[in-house]
């Protein structure tokens, strides 16, 4: 193929082609000569007054986008933010270790019920809980052998410890308020109590 490329035939252009090229060149030259002769035009006589009125009115203020406002906040704000970062960073790095002399402890004080006073019923104890307790007590009185069974005994112990735990949480709530951790613990204990009670009643009925 490389040998045949130089042997490709040549072709003659149209005989008028030079005339066309020459005409194009002449047209360009004539155009260039005539363009400076183009007439000029006068605007309206009142145009200057319109321009003057426009110049007298203040330029419309452009609302800057929020991003621009943020970047153009004053220098002192940036310096203040930098100073705060440096101070916090320094404190975190250089803060003194807690020593034995300075120790902060939290404690919850518990008071025993006064002698002769009945312990207060837990606030969370509902009517259903009372009925369940009464039912269990009645069943154990009537069917002592049934209440002696180890599984019943185990469930009663669980119920007692859960009740004690519930009372402890309620006391802490009176001190610390509705702390989310206490609320979560209370819900968890109530659910467990409900399950154990239900299981115990089912066992006593069987």
């Amino acid at each position, binding site marked *: 193929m490389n040998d045949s490329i130089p042997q490709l035939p040549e072709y003659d252009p149209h005989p*008028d082609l030079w005339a*066309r090229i020459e*005409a194009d060149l*002449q*047209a*360009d030259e*004539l*155009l*260039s000569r*005539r*363009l*400076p*002769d*183009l*007439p*000029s*035009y*006068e*605007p*309206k006589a009142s*145009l*200057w007054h*319109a*321009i*003057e009125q*426009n*110049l007298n009115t203040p*330029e419309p203020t452009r609302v800057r986008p929020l991003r621009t406002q943020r970047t153009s906040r004053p220098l002192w704000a940036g310096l203040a933010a930098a100073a705060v970062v440096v101070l916090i960073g320094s404190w975190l790095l250089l803060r003194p270790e807690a020593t034995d002399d300075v120790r902060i402890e939290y404690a919850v004080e518990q008071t025993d019920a006064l002698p002769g006073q009945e312990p207060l019923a837990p606030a969370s104890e509902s009517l259903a809980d009372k009925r369940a307790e009464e039912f269990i007590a009645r069943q154990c009185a009537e069917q002592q052998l049934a209440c002696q069974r180890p599984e019943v005994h185990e469930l009663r112990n669980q119920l007692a410890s859960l009740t004690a735990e519930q009372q402890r949480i309620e006391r802490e709530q009176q001190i610390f308020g509705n702390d989310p951790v206490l609320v979560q613990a209370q819900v968890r204990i109530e659910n467990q109590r409900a399950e154990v009670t239900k299981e115990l009643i089912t066992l006593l009925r069987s």
Partner: protein
Amino acid sequence: MFRLATPTDKHEQGPVRNDPVRSDPVGKDLVEQCRATDRPVAQRAAQRQLFEQYKRAMFSTAYRILNDYDHANDALQDAFVDVFRNLDQFTFRSTLGAWIKTIVVRQAIRKQHLEGRFLTIDEALHDQPAPFRDSLTGAELDAAIRTLPDGARTIFLLVEVEGYAHKEVAEMLGISEGTSKSQTSYAKKLLRQRLS
């Protein structure tokens, strides 16, 4: 803000004779007076003087591009307001006339809404048009230019009359250089067809 095209050498030696843009008769003093906001009366008088100096050349450019007398006046008004409001940015790196003309041209283009108005070249024009008559006058040429399609007319005026390079025209109009060249050629062929 404006992105001003730097006039090319071709523009400095442009084809339009006796053009105040080329001779640039306005000196630095008048420009400084136009900028003097602390002397409003003198400033306004200087601005008026500058407007009078350039209004005819600038209006002719806007009128030829827009082909509409009222629209050309609107374009010139907006352009000169922009000129006076932005005169602080003129740094004498080009002539003042070239700087103003670029603003006028851009205003005219903005008003013309040329998007999609660059016609595909008529196949019939592939036939060789007859040459121009030697007796062709400037007024006849002007009338023929005004009959050109908007896109081709604008590009022809910017390239052939105002002296902008195809690259500058392409940037101003948001088209390719190839389109600028083909539309200029198309306009010339149409002119030859209509003036032969």
